[in-house]
Structures are given as structure tokens and as C-alpha cells.
């Protein structure tokens, strides 16, 4: 557990943006995570007009690594026009990668090591690294030492047909062997989250996102991506289904447990490509540069629980800790942005936050954490409707949170997310009065 009031000098978020989030295999299918991060970063520099030499650190989250650009933050930062002297590193903490990237950058700012940093994340699920089987990989590596064509042939002798089958990565926990979806099913069954509850939650997410898209709220956080090849200029998320209906939602077959399951493709977040970038700096630096700070980071929590039974419950464990550290209650928070991995996970987390039993048993508190008023939660849609490029989602949550805080006049904002390995994160922001 790592939680507490954020130490050091005040750190503020100045701006946040992202590429459009698009369904994998669509607009960005020929791009790499490096390309997407480059677009998000150069978009951030362009829209803020910041002198790139000011940026002292870049941290990006990324989950599915492309071995060509294993430190994707560095490559994308250079290509996006950050100064070559700006160090950059990539963190991987599953779905909270960008949250942790942000925390890393914030710590560097708070401690005075840098004044200005950029954090965010990038992900493409259109081009997951599909590997040869272990047996083939071994032969290939050994074959580099082959002397002559005969020796080369000898090294491949004994290859079996099944060795030629490629290995496709699964979105699963290594320790439990369960995919996220399978574990979501376990969670739904254990807590009695019904199909109807899930469908209703997911439908609302799509409708909220569609409204925010129509009103230009999502557009305000999006930087366009020009796709080499097709040369389409992509400016919009393409996973939002504003026209979806309860009937349509109900018509889908369960995806993970075909016979008794309740999780479907429509009430689970879909595979998405996209990148995000958040500009943060020391509050005093923002004033010196004459840029407007939007929100100050007050507290944070990074938690980890049992990957089998407490997976997907990150928010329920992390939120109370971050709130406690900030010295406020859930009722003080005007804007709540929680990552929607599955509708079932959202409903479960909200239930647990309201549950006194959970509070007593798992958190050691006498009372429930509280009820999240629906109008404060993910008012512009969430990962279920906008999409979930694993490493990038945290940047979207932070950008949306500070943007909403400003528009809704909220004093406090809360960001929370769960991740594989039963990791959880929560961040509390306080608006900086202009």
C-alpha cells in the first residue's frame, strides 16, 4: 500500500489531451503505440504552445510492449519534438499504467527535481505481438550460430506441426491464469450483479458519452491524428453507441461464460487504440510561465490485493485511502472519474463503497465509504463507451476529471481505476482558483 497526502511542493495539472480512442482494427490499425503517443504529445505541445525545452521529464504508460520501441516514451518524445535532453521512461502497471506514470512524474515535480513534466500513456491492440512458439524461438536463436546450410537444416530437424502455431497473448493474470472477463464473471456471480444492472450501466455510459461527444466536450480533449497511408484525419472516438437500446443490449450472448454468464461484449470495455498526454508542473512554475493551473494533486493511493478474489476492485480499496489522506469524504467530491473495465466491475465497486460490511471487513472502518451520486460519476461516459487503450486510459481519466471540475465548478475531483494483478489507484484533485 502506498497512500497519503501528496508530499512536497504543490503539483498542478495544466492541460490534458488524448488522441481519439478508436476500436482496434479500425482507423489506427496500421499505427503503432509509438505513432499514437507521438500524435498525443505533439498535439499537447501544439495546443498548449509550451516551449518544449521546458519539459524536464516524460513518463508514459504502456501495457502491450512492442519490442521495436520498448521504451516507447523516449522514442515518441523525441519524435514529437520534446527536447532530446528530456529523459523519458515507460511504466507498465496494466490498466493503471498512465495513473502510475502520472504519479511518477508528479513525484519528480513535487520533489523539485523537475519543474515541468508530461505524463500519459499509449496503447495499440491492433498489433499485439504474436510470437512464435517457444520451441521455434529456441531453434531460431540457436540457428544464428549455424555453420553452413546443412547445419542450419539440422537445427530445425524435429520441428513439429504444433511448434508452428503462434502464441497469441491473452488478457489474463499470469498468477491466476484467468482472463479479465472470466474473473469479471466470478465477481458478478459472487456479488450478485445481474445482467440487467450491467446492461443498464453500460447503456447509460454510451448515452452519456454520446451527449458529451455531441456537445463538443470530448472534442475539446482530443487532438487529431493524421494516419499515414490512408491520410484520414481522425478527430472522433468511434466506439460510442449513442443509438443503443436496452433491447439491443439484451440481445447479446454472454462472452466469457456462454451458459450461465452475464458479461457480454456490450457491457465490457472493448479493445481500443489510443494515447493520452497530461501536462503537469509545479504550481509556482505555472505562475512563472503565466499558464493557468487547473487542479492541484492532493493525495493518492496505490493498492494491491488478492488477484483471484479481489481483482477489479481497485477503486473500492484505493478510494477510501486517497480520500482519508486528503482529509475529505466522498460527499465532498464533485467529480468522480472511475475506469470502467466491465459494467459488472463498476456496479460491484459502487456496491462495495456503499457497503458497511465491506468497510468493516476489508477496510477496517466502522462505516461505508459512501454513495457515489450517479450524476457525478463519469458524466461524459467512460471506458465502456469511449474505449480502453490499456496504457492510455489513466491520462483520459485525469484530463476529463480536471476539465469537468472546471466546467462543473467542483472543488474536489477523484480519479480511480483497477488493474490486472488486483492493483488499484485513486487520485484526489483540488481545483486551483484562477
Amino acid at each position, binding site marked *: 500500500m502506498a497512500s497519503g497526502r501528496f508530499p512536497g511542493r504543490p503539483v498542478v495539472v495544466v492541460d490534458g489531451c488524448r488522441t481519439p480512442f478508436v476500436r482496434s482494427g479500425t482507423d489506427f490499425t496500421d499505427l503503432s503505440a509509438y505513432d499514437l503517443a507521438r500524435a498525443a504529445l*505533439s498535439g499537447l505541445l*501544439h495546443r498548449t*504552445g509550451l516551449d518544449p525545452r521546458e519539459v524536464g521529464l516524460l513518463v508514459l504508460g504502456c501495457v502491450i510492449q512492442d519490442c521495436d520501441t520498448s521504451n516507447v516514451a523516449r522514442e515518441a518524445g523525441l519524435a514529437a*519534438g520534446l527536447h532530446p535532453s528530456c529523459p523519458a521512461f515507460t511504466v507498465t502497471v496494466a490498466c493503471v499504467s498512465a495513473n502510475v506514470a502520472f504519479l511518477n512524474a508528479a513525484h519528480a515535480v513535487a520533489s523539485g527535481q523537475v519543474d515541468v513534466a508530461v505524463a500519459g500513456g499509449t496503447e495499440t491492440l491492433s498489433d499485439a505481438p504474436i510470437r512464435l512458439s517457444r520451441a521455434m524461438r529456441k531453434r531460431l536463436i540457436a540457428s544464428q550460430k549455424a555453420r553452413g546450410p546443412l547445419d542450419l537444416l539440422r537445427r530445425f530437424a524435429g520441428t513439429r506441426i504444433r511448434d508452428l502455431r503462434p502464441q497469441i497473448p491473452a488478457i489474463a493474470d499470469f498468477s491466476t491464469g484467468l482472463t479479465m472477463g472470466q474473473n469479471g464473471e466470478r465477481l458478478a456471480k459472487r456479488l450478485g450483479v445481474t445482467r440487467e444492472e450491467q446492461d443498464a450501466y453500460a447503456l447509460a455510459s454510451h448515452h452519456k458519452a454520446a451527449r458529451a461527444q455531441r456537445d463538443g466536450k470530448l472534442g475539446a480533449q482530443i487532438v487529431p491524428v493524421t494516419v499515414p497511408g490512408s491520410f*484520414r*484525419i481522425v478527430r472522433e472516438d468511434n466506439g460510442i453507441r449513442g443509438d443503443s437500446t436496452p433491447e439491443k443490449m439484451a440481445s447479446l450472448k454472454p462472452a466469457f461464460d456462454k451458459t450461465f454468464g452475464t458479461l457480454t461484449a456490450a457491457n465490457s470495455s472493448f479493445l481500443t487504440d489510443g494515447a493520452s498526454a497530461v501536462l503537469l508542473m509545479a504550481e509556482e512554475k505555472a505562475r512563472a510561465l503565466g499558464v493557468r493551473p487547473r487542479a492541484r494533486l492532493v493525495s493518492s493511493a496505490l493498492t494491491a490485493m488478492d488477484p483471484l478474489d479481489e481483482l477489479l476492485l481497485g477503486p473500492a480499496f484505493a478510494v477510501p485511502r486517497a480520500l482519508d489522506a486528503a482529509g475529505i469524504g466522498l460527499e465532498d467530491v464533485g467529480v468522480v472519474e472511475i475506469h470502467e473495465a466491465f459494467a459488472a466491475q463498476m456496479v460491484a465497486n459502487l456496491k462495495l463503497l456503499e457497503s458497511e460490511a465491506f468497510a468493516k471487513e476489508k477496510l477496517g472502518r466502522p462505516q461505508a465509504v459512501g454513495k457515489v451520486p450517479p450524476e457525478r460519476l463519469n458524466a461524459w461516459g467512460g471506458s465502456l463507451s469511449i474505449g480502453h487503450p490499456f496504457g492510455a486510459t489513466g491520462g483520459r481519466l485525469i484530463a476529463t476529471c480536471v476539465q469537468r471540475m472546471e466546467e462543473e465548478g467542483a472543488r474536489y475531483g477523484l480519479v480511480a481505476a483497477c488493474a490486472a494483478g488486483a492493483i488499484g489507484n485513486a487520485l484526489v484533485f483540488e481545483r486551483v482558483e484562477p
Partner: protein
Amino acid sequence: MKAVQLEKRLDGVAVLTLDNPHGPHNILSRDLFEEFRRVLEEIRTDPHVKAAVLISGKRDFLAGADIKSFFAMKEPSEGESLSREGHALLDLIAESPKPFVAAIHGQALGGGVELALACHYRLATDDPATALALPEVTLGVLPGGGGTQRLPRLIGLAAALPLLLTGQRVRARKALRLGLVDALTSPGGLKETAALAARQLAEGTLKPRRRRRKLLERLMERPPLRALVFRQARKGVLSKTRGLYPAPPAILECVREGYEKGLRAGFRREEALFGELCASEACKGLLGLALAMIELKKPLPGPQGRKVGTLGILGGGFMGAGIASVSLKLCPVVVKDVSDGVLGKCARTVWEGLSKQAKSGALHPFERDRLFARLHPALDYGDLRRADLVVEAVFEDLDLKRRVLEETEAVVSETCVFASNTSALPIASIAERARVPERVLGMHYFSPVPKMPLLEIVVTPKTSPEALATARAFGVAQGKTCIVVKDGPGFYTTRILSPFLNEAMVLLEEGAAVEAVDRALKDFGYPVGPVALLDEVGIDVGAHVAKEFGDAYASRGLSSSQALPILFEAGYHGRKNGRGFYRYDGKRKGRKPVNREVYAFFGGPKRKEMPAKEMAERLALLMVNEAVWCLQEGVISSPRDGDVGAVLGLGFPPFRGGPFRYLDSLGAAEAVRRMEGYAERLGPRFRPAPLLAEAARKGERFYGEA
């Protein structure tokens, strides 16, 4: 400080560093020869020196010869003796028993390559800055330092001829592939690596790398196939240059002589022909241009412009995309247009241009990504708010241009410069309603922007010197040669083009055939005939410009031909809609056929023979005369600017040096005589400009006695 520094190392390697104390480049000149000879003698006689390295202390290896000195040569014997001295000097290196290694980083041009060729081993850095070329042919001369002899011997006839005849640049990797260099290395530690190579050559542990030539290539270098190769090359050269440029056939002649009679004979031929070429008119014309272009790269006196941190471009069409392409290396570029379709096409044009550079080795592929990331497609004016310079490249429509200026002024800072990329609309009338007219000027680019070297900057009486300095410095940084001209109908280039094109229409009306007119002007030295050019720029544009111009100068008898507007009305737009003076429906390859339908607009299909020389002269003299008018009216500030603008922007025959140098070589009196003859026969449009008449009377030249 000496231009050639000698360092004798303990390992027996002598390092000769070329480091011109008088300027940023190493330049071959007689003074350098002298010093070189002394140093080479020292290397020859010092028994401790086993091998030598030649390296540059500058950014480039060696930028060529002192071309100003060529300019002054009047007699063939002057160039001949210079070439002979060069050969003698380079022979000292080539025939030295101690191996010489040329360590090449940056550009090696002309004499720089020849110096490297005389060495026993060439080591180049694998860096985008490194490039080798023998550009002498583009200056109307030939490589007079053994280049025509040593290059084909090193890399083979088939590979050498294109380099000698076009002057094209060869980057490091291609140079290695061709065998022009023996090895590549990284820029850091070049000297040490070269010293190691020199030591190993002396010890005999390193052998120079020679490219294995294919059988066909080897056969081509022996009789009887060789004679055929030379014949074909000569034919190609003559058909390309139409016999107007003496340098390419002279180069072929030297190469042939060397193959047939040996290296020494080849050198002698090189000396003789180098001398002849240096004294030729064509060489003076080309050199004059080259020198003018160098001068025009220097900053103007007076206030310095502001640095452009962000460039805005209005209009993502082909022009806008071209301007973006040449600007991305300088700063982020925001292109604003009304639709993502246009912006996407713009991005495609930029990307494809960058990719081509990446493929040739001019740009690292990662650098392409970095530059492309600086291109921001925008649908909203708000994205332009941080621009320091906005160039509009929207349609040629006065109201539209005024409106985009107004809309731009609403978002940009007070100091932002606004440039219109119009080819004919007066800048002052675009700026009429501007809030800050001081910031408005014209930046007239030529299409395709990445290829065309000229930028015509147009200033109104209100344009501030700061705005001019900003635009000009940016243009120079884009790699453009900038001429600054005064506002007026057609500025300079469009203005002198207009009577030229109009006269082509008059010729058609008189009964000339389309292809005959074009051929006549190509034989005069224009790269494209005037009628084909009209098809390229568009008949609508031609009609529009002709009208504006005819109206403005009607008093001088320059009324415009009525044919163009009528043709346009009838649906002939030129190449863009496939209907013009030529037909574009045929196969891509080969010559395009004349569209005989158009003769209906010029008095019927019957065409008559007209003297080609006269046709060319009528057009050329009208262009030249208009250029003199421009000088007289102060539209251009010097003959130099007029020459550069006409050659780089309009394809005025480069070997003639431009309108003013052409007049100087023809003689003002002779020009006036011819023009008055035409004026009598054909009308007052041929009346010589007063300034020209005055020059004729006084026997003056536009360039003084140079």
C-alpha cells in the same frame, strides 16, 4: 593560420587539414595550390612519413573552386593553365608512393571530389550531411581537375557518365555502392579511422575496395561497344540540351579521349576544353546566376526579422502542402482549411515528399516522423493564434483573400506577418481592409514548391521593414532564393511572363502551329514551350492574368489576345481538366499530341510555316523588354534580381544568364534595332522601354563592364 595544416604523427601518418582561414568553406584556388605543393613536397621527402590523410577543418570537405575567378577569365588560355596546374598538383598525390586517404565529411563538390579521386583511398562519413558531386556542368564548365578521367576509371563508364553530365549529388551510402568511396565510417573519430586506414594501406594490410563491375559494364568500356555508348550518350545530350550547352558534349569528348588515348591525353583534352568553356558566354551566364544566388542568400541590411516559431498556412491545396513541406524543418506548421478531405490530401503530399527524402538518405526515417508530427491540420482559425507568419494559399479570388486576412487578423498577435501567395493579385488591394497593413506582403512561391528555387517577395509602400525581414529570412531558411519586388500588376515574374504568353497566342492567330511555337522557344533555351506552359498553369489563370495585365498596360499597345477567355468559356482549362492546347487522353509516355480542336479559335485548322527564330525572338524580346520596364519602374531593384527571377521562376534560358545578361551579350543597340523593326511591322507592343533605348544610345551595359 595556414589553409593547409600539416601534422606529422608519431605513427608515420601525416594529416593534412584543409582549413581556409578566410571563410567558412574550403575553396580551391591558386593560393591553395601553392601551399599544397609545399606540404606535399615535405611529405615526399620526410622519411618518417609513411602515409597521409587529407581532411577538412570545416563543416564541409571542400566546396569546389573559386568560381569568381572563372568569371574573370576572358581567354581560353587562362582556364587551360589553371587546369594544367591542377593536374600537376593532383598528380603529386596520385603518383605518390605513400598512400593518401581522403577523409570526407560534409559536401565534397567539384574540385573536392577530384582531390579525393586523386587519393588512393576514400573514407566518407555515413551522415546525411555528406554528399559528393561534380556540379561543374551546371556552371557551364567541366571538371578540370581530372574528374573526367579518374571518375570513370574508378567507378566505370556507365556509372560515371550520369554524375559527370548532370552534376547530381551522391550521398554516402550510394557513393559506397558505386565504389566512389571505399568505406564508410561514423563522423566522430573520422581522423583517427582515416589514419588507421592510411597506416594499413602503407603496411599493405588494407586493400582499396573496388566494385566488381558486371560483364555488360566491362564490355561497354571496350571497343566496339564503347563507341556505341559514346554515340548514344552524345545523342542523348544533344537532344536534351538542344545543342545550346557546350559543357556536356565537351565532357563526353574528354572521357572518350581518355579511353582511347590514355590518361595523359585525357588530361590535355580536359585542359583545352576547360579553358574554352571558362571563356564561353554560356559559362558566364550560368556563373553569373550562381554568384547572384549566393549573394541573395545573405541577410539584408537593416532591421532583423522575428524568428518564426509557428507557421500558419491557409489552404491545404497543392501549393499549401508544398509550402508546408519546405517549412517543417524550421518550425511547427499549422495548415488550416475547411475540410478534412483537403487536409488529408495535404498531409499525404507532405508525407510522400518526406518519405522520398528518407529513401534517398537525405533524411533519417525517424526524422521524417519528427517532421510530420509538426504538421497540424486545423479546421479552426483558433489554431493559428500562435503563428508568427501566416501564408495564405487559397484560391485566387480577391474577396476570399481579403476575408481570410480579416479572419486571420482576428486571432493572431500584433506582430504576426501575413503573406499572400498570390501570383497576380495586387497585395495593396488585398491589404486594403487590413487592421495592420504594415504586416501584409506577398510571398509568391512557384509550383511545385519543393522543387522550384525562387521566392518572389512583394512589398507594398506600407509593408514594414520588419515584416519584410521576417519573410525573407524565413524564405532563405526554406532554401529559396528570394527576390524582393514592388507591388503592382503581376509583380515581376507574372508581369514579364504575360506579354510573352500573349505573344504566343498572337502567333497562333497568325497561323503558327502549336508545336512549332513550343519547339521554337525550346530551341531558344526555355525548358517548356509557352503553349504547353499555358496548359500547365491553366488556361483560366492565363486568361485572368492576361486581362489584368492588358488593362493595366493598354496604353503601351499590350492589349491581350481574346482567345484565352473564349477558350476557357468553351471548357478548355488546360491540363487540369484534360482539355487544352494538347491532348492528355493518350498514354502517359511519349509526346503528347496537339489538340487540333483549338485551332478553331485561332482562324481554322490550316497552319502555316513561320520562321522559328523570329517566333522565339518575338516572345523573348517582349519578356526582356518588360523586365527592363520593371527595372525602370523600380519593381525590381537590380538587373541581378531580374535575371535570377526570370531564370529560376520562368525558365528563361539559364545559359543566357537572364534577361539583362542576355541584353548585355546581344548589345542594347542591337536589341533596340530588332525591336523597332518588329514594332514597325507588328505594333507598338515592341517599342523598347525608355531605359533600354537610353542604354542603346549611350552604349551602356546593364552589368557595367564585368
